[in-house]
Protein backbone atom coordinates (compact mmCIF):
# COMPACT_ATOMS: atom_id res chain seq x y z
CA UNK A 1 0.00 0.00 0.00
CA UNK A 2 1.34 3.44 -0.90
CA UNK A 3 1.14 6.48 1.37
CA UNK A 4 -1.54 7.95 -0.87
CA UNK A 5 -3.80 4.89 -0.64
CA UNK A 6 -3.18 4.55 3.08
CA UNK A 7 -4.04 8.21 3.69
CA UNK A 8 -7.24 7.99 1.65
CA UNK A 9 -8.48 4.83 3.41
CA UNK A 10 -7.62 6.08 6.89
CA UNK A 11 -9.28 9.44 6.16
CA UNK A 12 -12.42 7.68 4.98
CA UNK A 13 -12.55 5.40 8.04
CA UNK A 14 -11.85 8.31 10.40
CA UNK A 15 -14.58 10.35 8.76
CA UNK A 16 -17.06 7.51 9.32
CA UNK A 17 -15.95 7.09 12.94
CA UNK A 18 -16.30 10.81 13.62
CA UNK A 19 -19.66 10.96 11.88
CA UNK A 20 -21.20 8.01 13.73
CA UNK A 21 -19.54 9.04 16.97
CA UNK A 22 -21.10 12.47 17.02
CA UNK A 23 -24.44 11.28 15.67
CA UNK A 24 -24.80 8.72 18.44
CA UNK A 25 -23.10 10.75 21.13
CA UNK A 26 -20.78 7.85 21.84
CA UNK A 27 -17.68 9.58 20.48
CA UNK A 28 -15.50 8.54 17.56
CA UNK A 29 -12.25 8.07 19.46
CA UNK A 30 -13.31 4.81 21.00
CA UNK A 31 -13.59 3.02 17.61
CA UNK A 32 -10.64 4.77 16.02
CA UNK A 33 -7.81 2.92 17.75
CA UNK A 34 -9.33 -0.56 17.14
CA UNK A 35 -9.99 0.46 13.54
CA UNK A 36 -6.34 1.42 13.02
CA UNK A 37 -4.80 -1.49 14.91
CA UNK A 38 -7.13 -4.29 13.83
CA UNK A 39 -7.71 -3.28 10.21
CA UNK A 40 -4.50 -1.49 9.24
CA UNK A 41 -2.20 -3.24 11.71
CA UNK A 42 -0.89 0.11 12.91
CA UNK A 43 1.17 -0.15 16.10
CA UNK A 44 -1.16 0.66 18.99
CA UNK A 45 1.09 3.45 20.30
CA UNK A 46 0.92 5.32 16.97
CA UNK A 47 -2.83 4.70 16.85
CA UNK A 48 -3.33 6.12 20.35
CA UNK A 49 -1.22 9.18 19.49
CA UNK A 50 -3.26 9.91 16.37
CA UNK A 51 -6.51 9.34 18.24
CA UNK A 52 -5.54 11.79 21.01
CA UNK A 53 -4.98 14.47 18.39
CA UNK A 54 -8.39 13.86 16.85
CA UNK A 55 -10.04 13.96 20.28
CA UNK A 56 -8.63 17.45 20.90
CA UNK A 57 -9.85 18.59 17.49
CA UNK A 58 -13.43 17.34 17.85
CA UNK A 59 -13.81 18.53 21.42
CA UNK A 60 -12.63 22.02 20.55
CA UNK A 61 -14.54 22.12 17.27
CA UNK A 62 -17.83 21.20 18.91
CA UNK A 63 -17.43 23.56 21.88
CA UNK A 64 -18.68 26.63 20.04
CA UNK A 65 -21.96 24.88 19.27
CA UNK A 66 -22.39 23.57 22.83
CA UNK A 67 -21.81 26.97 24.40
CA UNK A 68 -24.88 28.48 22.75
CA UNK A 69 -27.17 26.06 24.57
CA UNK A 70 -26.07 27.40 27.93
CA UNK A 71 -25.76 24.08 29.72
CA UNK A 72 -22.05 23.81 30.40
CA UNK A 73 -20.69 24.74 33.82
CA UNK A 74 -17.23 26.23 33.55
CA UNK A 75 -16.47 25.91 37.29
CA UNK A 76 -17.28 22.22 37.50
CA UNK A 77 -15.25 21.73 34.33
CA UNK A 78 -12.19 23.64 35.46
CA UNK A 79 -12.12 22.08 38.91
CA UNK A 80 -12.41 18.53 37.59
CA UNK A 81 -9.75 19.26 34.96
CA UNK A 82 -7.22 19.23 37.80
CA UNK A 83 -8.08 15.56 38.23
CA UNK A 84 -8.32 14.68 34.53
CA UNK A 85 -5.07 16.38 33.50
CA UNK A 86 -3.10 14.81 36.36
CA UNK A 87 -4.69 11.49 35.41
CA UNK A 88 -3.81 12.06 31.76
CA UNK A 89 -0.15 12.64 32.61
CA UNK A 90 -0.19 9.47 34.67
CA UNK A 91 -1.82 7.54 31.81
CA UNK A 92 0.73 8.85 29.29
CA UNK A 93 3.58 7.72 31.53
CA UNK A 94 1.90 4.33 32.00
CA UNK A 95 1.70 3.96 28.21
CA UNK A 96 5.49 3.93 28.07
CA UNK A 97 5.98 1.21 30.67
CA UNK A 98 3.16 -1.28 30.10
CA UNK A 99 3.20 -3.71 27.17
CA UNK A 100 1.10 -3.15 24.05
CA UNK A 101 -0.66 -6.38 25.00
CA UNK A 102 -1.89 -4.92 28.30
CA UNK A 103 -2.99 -1.75 26.52
CA UNK A 104 -4.96 -3.95 24.12
CA UNK A 105 -6.65 -5.85 26.98
CA UNK A 106 -7.58 -2.67 28.85
CA UNK A 107 -8.85 -1.17 25.62
CA UNK A 108 -11.02 -4.21 24.96
CA UNK A 109 -12.58 -3.96 28.41
CA UNK A 110 -13.25 -0.24 28.03
CA UNK A 111 -14.92 -0.90 24.66
CA UNK A 112 -17.20 -3.51 26.23
CA UNK A 113 -18.04 -1.12 29.06
CA UNK A 114 -18.80 1.69 26.58
CA UNK A 115 -21.05 -0.64 24.61
CA UNK A 116 -22.89 -1.54 27.80
CA UNK A 117 -23.30 2.13 28.70
CA UNK A 118 -24.72 2.86 25.24
CA UNK A 119 -27.68 0.60 25.95
CA UNK A 120 -28.64 2.64 28.98
CA UNK A 121 -31.21 5.38 28.76
CA UNK A 122 -29.82 8.87 29.08
CA UNK A 123 -31.75 9.90 32.13
CA UNK A 124 -31.19 12.40 34.86
CA UNK A 125 -30.34 11.01 38.26
CA UNK A 126 -31.77 14.11 39.80
CA UNK A 127 -32.10 14.30 43.57
CA UNK A 128 -33.25 16.99 45.92
CA UNK A 129 -30.62 16.13 48.48
CA UNK A 130 -28.74 19.13 49.84
CA UNK A 131 -25.48 19.76 47.97
CA UNK A 132 -22.06 18.63 49.13
CA UNK A 133 -20.81 21.54 51.31
CA UNK A 134 -17.57 21.33 49.36
CA UNK A 135 -19.49 21.90 46.11
CA UNK A 136 -21.13 24.97 47.61
CA UNK A 137 -17.80 26.35 48.75
CA UNK A 138 -16.43 25.75 45.25
CA UNK A 139 -19.39 27.53 43.68
CA UNK A 140 -20.35 24.53 41.55
CA UNK A 141 -24.11 24.56 41.98
CA UNK A 142 -25.81 26.12 39.01
CA UNK A 143 -28.87 26.74 36.94
CA UNK A 144 -29.72 25.27 33.57
CA UNK A 145 -32.45 26.03 31.04
CA UNK A 146 -35.25 23.46 31.07
CA UNK A 147 -38.64 23.30 29.37
CA UNK A 148 -40.25 24.79 32.47
CA UNK A 149 -37.75 27.63 32.73
CA UNK A 150 -34.42 27.92 34.58
CA UNK A 151 -33.87 25.10 37.01
CA UNK A 152 -31.40 24.87 39.84
CA UNK A 153 -29.19 21.88 40.39
CA UNK A 154 -26.90 20.85 43.20
CA UNK A 155 -23.61 19.01 43.00
CA UNK A 156 -22.98 16.03 45.26
CA UNK A 157 -20.09 13.82 46.31
CA UNK A 158 -17.25 15.97 44.99
CA UNK A 159 -14.35 13.80 46.30
CA UNK A 160 -15.78 10.66 44.66
CA UNK A 161 -16.38 12.46 41.37
CA UNK A 162 -12.88 13.93 41.53
CA UNK A 163 -11.29 10.49 42.03
CA UNK A 164 -13.29 8.96 39.18
CA UNK A 165 -12.19 11.84 36.98
CA UNK A 166 -8.56 11.02 37.72
CA UNK A 167 -9.32 7.52 36.43
CA UNK A 168 -11.03 8.92 33.35
CA UNK A 169 -7.97 11.07 32.65
CA UNK A 170 -5.62 8.12 33.10
CA UNK A 171 -7.65 6.01 30.64
CA UNK A 172 -7.65 8.91 28.20
CA UNK A 173 -3.87 9.22 28.41
CA UNK A 174 -3.31 5.49 28.11
CA UNK A 175 -5.82 4.74 25.35
CA UNK A 176 -6.17 8.04 23.48
CA UNK A 177 -9.91 8.24 23.97
CA UNK A 178 -12.19 10.90 25.41
CA UNK A 179 -13.36 8.49 28.18
CA UNK A 180 -16.88 9.83 27.79
CA UNK A 181 -18.39 6.75 29.45
CA UNK A 182 -16.30 7.17 32.62
CA UNK A 183 -16.91 10.91 32.75
CA UNK A 184 -20.64 10.31 32.57
CA UNK A 185 -20.31 7.83 35.42
CA UNK A 186 -18.46 10.40 37.53
CA UNK A 187 -20.64 13.40 36.80
CA UNK A 188 -24.09 11.84 36.39
CA UNK A 189 -23.98 8.98 38.84
CA UNK A 190 -21.53 10.17 41.49
CA UNK A 191 -22.03 13.92 41.49
CA UNK A 192 -25.70 13.95 40.45
CA UNK A 193 -25.21 16.60 37.78
CA UNK A 194 -28.06 16.84 35.23
CA UNK A 195 -27.33 14.89 32.07
CA UNK A 196 -27.24 17.85 29.66
CA UNK A 197 -24.90 19.78 31.94
CA UNK A 198 -22.52 16.86 32.35
CA UNK A 199 -22.28 15.98 28.64
CA UNK A 200 -21.60 19.53 27.52
CA UNK A 201 -19.19 20.22 30.37
CA UNK A 202 -17.39 16.95 29.73
CA UNK A 203 -16.97 17.91 26.06
CA UNK A 204 -15.13 21.03 27.20
CA UNK A 205 -12.90 18.99 29.47
CA UNK A 206 -12.00 16.34 26.90
CA UNK A 207 -9.79 18.68 24.84
CA UNK A 208 -7.83 19.89 27.86
CA UNK A 209 -7.43 16.34 29.17
CA UNK A 210 -6.21 15.02 25.82
CA UNK A 211 -3.79 17.94 25.42
CA UNK A 212 -2.14 17.02 28.73
CA UNK A 213 -1.21 13.56 27.47
CA UNK A 214 -0.69 14.53 23.80
CA UNK A 215 2.28 16.70 24.80
CA UNK A 216 3.93 13.67 26.37
CA UNK A 217 3.11 11.50 23.33
CA UNK A 218 4.57 14.08 20.98
CA UNK A 219 7.85 14.42 22.81
CA UNK A 220 8.14 10.66 23.03
CA UNK A 221 7.76 10.32 19.25
CA UNK A 222 4.41 8.50 19.40
CA UNK A 223 2.66 11.00 17.13
CA UNK A 224 3.35 10.26 13.49
CA UNK A 225 2.41 13.21 11.27
CA UNK A 226 1.50 11.15 8.21
CA UNK A 227 -0.91 9.05 10.28
CA UNK A 228 -2.26 11.86 12.46
CA UNK A 229 -3.07 14.01 9.41
CA UNK A 230 -5.83 11.87 7.83
CA UNK A 231 -7.12 10.82 11.27
CA UNK A 232 -7.47 14.35 12.60
CA UNK A 233 -8.96 15.85 9.44
CA UNK A 234 -11.26 12.87 8.83
CA UNK A 235 -12.66 12.69 12.36
CA UNK A 236 -13.06 16.47 12.57
CA UNK A 237 -14.99 16.68 9.29
CA UNK A 238 -17.12 13.66 10.15
CA UNK A 239 -18.04 14.87 13.63
CA UNK A 240 -18.91 18.39 12.48
CA UNK A 241 -21.21 17.05 9.77
CA UNK A 242 -22.66 14.52 12.21
CA UNK A 243 -23.47 17.29 14.68
CA UNK A 244 -25.32 19.20 11.95
CA UNK A 245 -27.50 16.23 11.07
CA UNK A 246 -28.01 15.26 14.71
CA UNK A 247 -30.74 17.83 15.27
CA UNK A 248 -32.94 16.33 12.55
CA UNK A 249 -32.69 12.60 13.14
CA UNK A 250 -33.76 10.07 15.71
CA UNK A 251 -30.65 8.26 16.78
CA UNK A 252 -31.86 5.63 19.21
CA UNK A 253 -31.61 2.74 16.71
CA UNK A 254 -28.33 3.98 15.32
CA UNK A 255 -27.04 4.13 18.88
CA UNK A 256 -27.87 0.46 19.38
CA UNK A 257 -26.18 -0.53 16.11
CA UNK A 258 -23.08 1.53 16.88
CA UNK A 259 -23.05 0.12 20.43
CA UNK A 260 -23.06 -3.36 18.88
CA UNK A 261 -20.10 -2.47 16.66
CA UNK A 262 -18.22 -1.20 19.71
CA UNK A 263 -18.93 -4.45 21.56
CA UNK A 264 -17.64 -6.54 18.64
CA UNK A 265 -14.51 -4.41 18.39
CA UNK A 266 -14.03 -4.90 22.13
CA UNK A 267 -14.19 -8.69 21.83
CA UNK A 268 -11.85 -8.68 18.82
CA UNK A 269 -9.43 -6.39 20.64
CA UNK A 270 -9.42 -8.68 23.68
CA UNK A 271 -8.91 -11.75 21.48
CA UNK A 272 -6.06 -10.21 19.50
CA UNK A 273 -4.35 -8.91 22.62
CA UNK A 274 -4.68 -12.15 24.58
CA UNK A 275 -3.37 -14.20 21.65
CA UNK A 276 -0.39 -11.86 21.41
CA UNK A 277 -1.15 -10.29 18.05
CA UNK A 278 -1.11 -6.70 19.30
Amino acid at each position, binding site marked *: *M*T*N*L*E*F*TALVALGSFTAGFLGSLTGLGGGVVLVPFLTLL*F*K*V*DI*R*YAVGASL*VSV*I*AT*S*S*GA*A*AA*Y*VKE*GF*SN*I*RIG*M*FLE*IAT*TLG*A*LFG*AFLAAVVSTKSIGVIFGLVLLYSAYMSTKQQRDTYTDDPPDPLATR*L*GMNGVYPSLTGPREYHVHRVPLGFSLMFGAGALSGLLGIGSGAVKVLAMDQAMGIPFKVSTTTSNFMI*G*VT*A*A*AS*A*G*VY*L*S*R*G*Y*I*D*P*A*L*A*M*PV*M*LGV*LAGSLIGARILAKTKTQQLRIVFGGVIALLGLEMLYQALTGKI
Partner: protein
Amino acid sequence: MFRVSEWTDQKVETIIGNLLRAGVSLAAIVVLIGGSIFLVRHGLEPANYRVFAGEPSDLRHWDGIAWSSLRLRGRGIIQLGLLFLLATPVTRVAFAAFAFAMERDWLYVAVSIFVFLILLYSLLGSGF
Protein backbone atom coordinates in the same frame (compact mmCIF):
# COMPACT_ATOMS: atom_id res chain seq x y z
CA MET B 1 -25.56 56.50 32.00
CA PHE B 2 -22.52 54.33 32.03
CA ARG B 3 -21.94 50.76 31.11
CA VAL B 4 -19.95 48.36 33.15
CA SER B 5 -18.45 45.63 31.04
CA GLU B 6 -19.70 42.52 32.73
CA TRP B 7 -17.83 39.25 32.72
CA THR B 8 -20.58 36.71 33.10
CA ASP B 9 -19.95 32.98 32.82
CA GLN B 10 -22.10 32.89 29.69
CA LYS B 11 -20.07 35.58 27.96
CA VAL B 12 -16.81 33.92 28.94
CA GLU B 13 -17.98 30.61 27.53
CA THR B 14 -19.02 32.19 24.24
CA ILE B 15 -15.59 33.77 23.84
CA ILE B 16 -13.94 30.47 24.77
CA GLY B 17 -16.09 28.61 22.24
CA ASN B 18 -15.02 30.96 19.45
CA LEU B 19 -11.40 30.83 20.58
CA LEU B 20 -11.43 27.03 20.37
CA ARG B 21 -13.03 27.05 16.94
CA ALA B 22 -10.46 29.51 15.63
CA GLY B 23 -7.59 27.42 17.02
CA VAL B 24 -8.91 24.21 15.49
CA SER B 25 -9.51 25.89 12.12
CA LEU B 26 -5.97 27.25 12.03
CA ALA B 27 -4.54 23.85 13.02
CA ALA B 28 -6.62 22.02 10.42
CA ILE B 29 -5.50 24.36 7.63
CA VAL B 30 -1.81 24.01 8.53
CA VAL B 31 -2.14 20.22 8.80
CA LEU B 32 -3.88 20.13 5.41
CA ILE B 33 -1.09 22.17 3.80
CA GLY B 34 1.60 19.98 5.34
CA GLY B 35 -0.28 16.83 4.36
CA SER B 36 -0.57 17.98 0.75
CA ILE B 37 3.16 18.67 0.53
CA PHE B 38 3.92 15.29 2.09
CA LEU B 39 1.62 13.41 -0.29
CA VAL B 40 2.87 15.22 -3.39
CA ARG B 41 6.44 14.29 -2.50
CA HIS B 42 5.99 10.87 -0.92
CA GLY B 43 2.50 9.74 -1.98
CA LEU B 44 3.73 6.81 -4.05
CA GLU B 45 6.16 5.42 -1.48
CA PRO B 46 5.03 2.38 0.52
CA ALA B 47 3.32 3.05 3.87
CA ASN B 48 4.48 1.17 6.94
CA TYR B 49 3.07 1.68 10.42
CA ARG B 50 3.25 -1.89 11.65
CA VAL B 51 6.69 -1.48 13.03
CA PHE B 52 7.02 1.01 15.83
CA ALA B 53 10.17 3.05 15.45
CA GLY B 54 9.19 6.31 17.14
CA GLU B 55 9.53 9.64 15.38
CA PRO B 56 12.92 11.30 14.76
CA SER B 57 13.77 14.10 17.15
CA ASP B 58 13.04 16.87 14.64
CA LEU B 59 9.38 15.76 14.70
CA ARG B 60 9.15 15.50 18.49
CA HIS B 61 10.20 18.87 19.85
CA TRP B 62 9.00 22.33 19.01
CA ASP B 63 12.42 23.60 17.91
CA GLY B 64 12.94 20.68 15.54
CA ILE B 65 9.39 21.08 14.24
CA ALA B 66 9.95 24.80 13.62
CA TRP B 67 13.25 24.03 11.89
CA SER B 68 11.71 21.44 9.61
CA SER B 69 8.61 23.59 8.88
CA LEU B 70 10.80 26.48 7.79
CA ARG B 71 12.34 24.13 5.24
CA LEU B 72 8.79 23.42 4.04
CA ARG B 73 8.97 19.74 4.89
CA GLY B 74 5.49 18.25 4.76
CA ARG B 75 5.78 16.17 7.92
CA GLY B 76 7.26 19.09 9.83
CA ILE B 77 4.39 21.36 8.81
CA ILE B 78 1.84 18.73 9.89
CA GLN B 79 3.51 18.59 13.32
CA LEU B 80 3.40 22.39 13.45
CA GLY B 81 -0.35 22.27 12.86
CA LEU B 82 -0.65 19.66 15.61
CA LEU B 83 1.31 21.96 17.95
CA PHE B 84 -1.24 24.70 17.21
CA LEU B 85 -3.96 22.19 18.01
CA LEU B 86 -2.32 21.28 21.33
CA ALA B 87 -1.91 24.95 22.16
CA THR B 88 -5.64 25.60 21.70
CA PRO B 89 -6.90 24.06 24.97
CA VAL B 90 -3.91 25.59 26.78
CA THR B 91 -4.93 29.02 25.55
CA ARG B 92 -8.47 28.33 26.66
CA VAL B 93 -7.33 27.57 30.20
CA ALA B 94 -5.16 30.69 30.26
CA PHE B 95 -8.10 32.76 29.09
CA ALA B 96 -10.34 31.22 31.74
CA ALA B 97 -7.83 32.28 34.40
CA PHE B 98 -7.98 35.82 33.04
CA ALA B 99 -11.79 35.80 32.93
CA PHE B 100 -12.07 34.49 36.50
CA ALA B 101 -9.76 37.33 37.55
CA MET B 102 -12.16 39.79 35.88
CA GLU B 103 -14.96 38.21 37.91
CA ARG B 104 -12.74 38.48 41.00
CA ASP B 105 -13.15 34.80 41.66
CA TRP B 106 -9.66 34.20 43.04
CA LEU B 107 -10.29 30.59 43.97
CA TYR B 108 -10.90 29.73 40.34
CA VAL B 109 -8.03 31.89 39.16
CA ALA B 110 -5.86 29.58 41.25
CA VAL B 111 -7.59 26.45 39.92
CA SER B 112 -7.13 27.60 36.30
CA ILE B 113 -3.48 28.49 36.83
CA PHE B 114 -2.86 25.08 38.35
CA VAL B 115 -4.39 23.32 35.33
CA PHE B 116 -2.42 25.67 33.06
CA LEU B 117 0.84 24.67 34.76
CA ILE B 118 0.08 20.96 34.33
CA LEU B 119 -0.51 21.53 30.61
CA LEU B 120 2.63 23.63 30.33
CA TYR B 121 4.63 20.89 32.00
CA SER B 122 3.32 18.40 29.45
CA LEU B 123 3.93 20.65 26.45
CA LEU B 124 7.34 21.90 27.53
CA GLY B 125 8.32 18.32 28.12
CA SER B 126 8.50 18.45 24.33
CA GLY B 127 11.49 20.74 24.70
CA PHE B 128 13.84 18.22 26.25
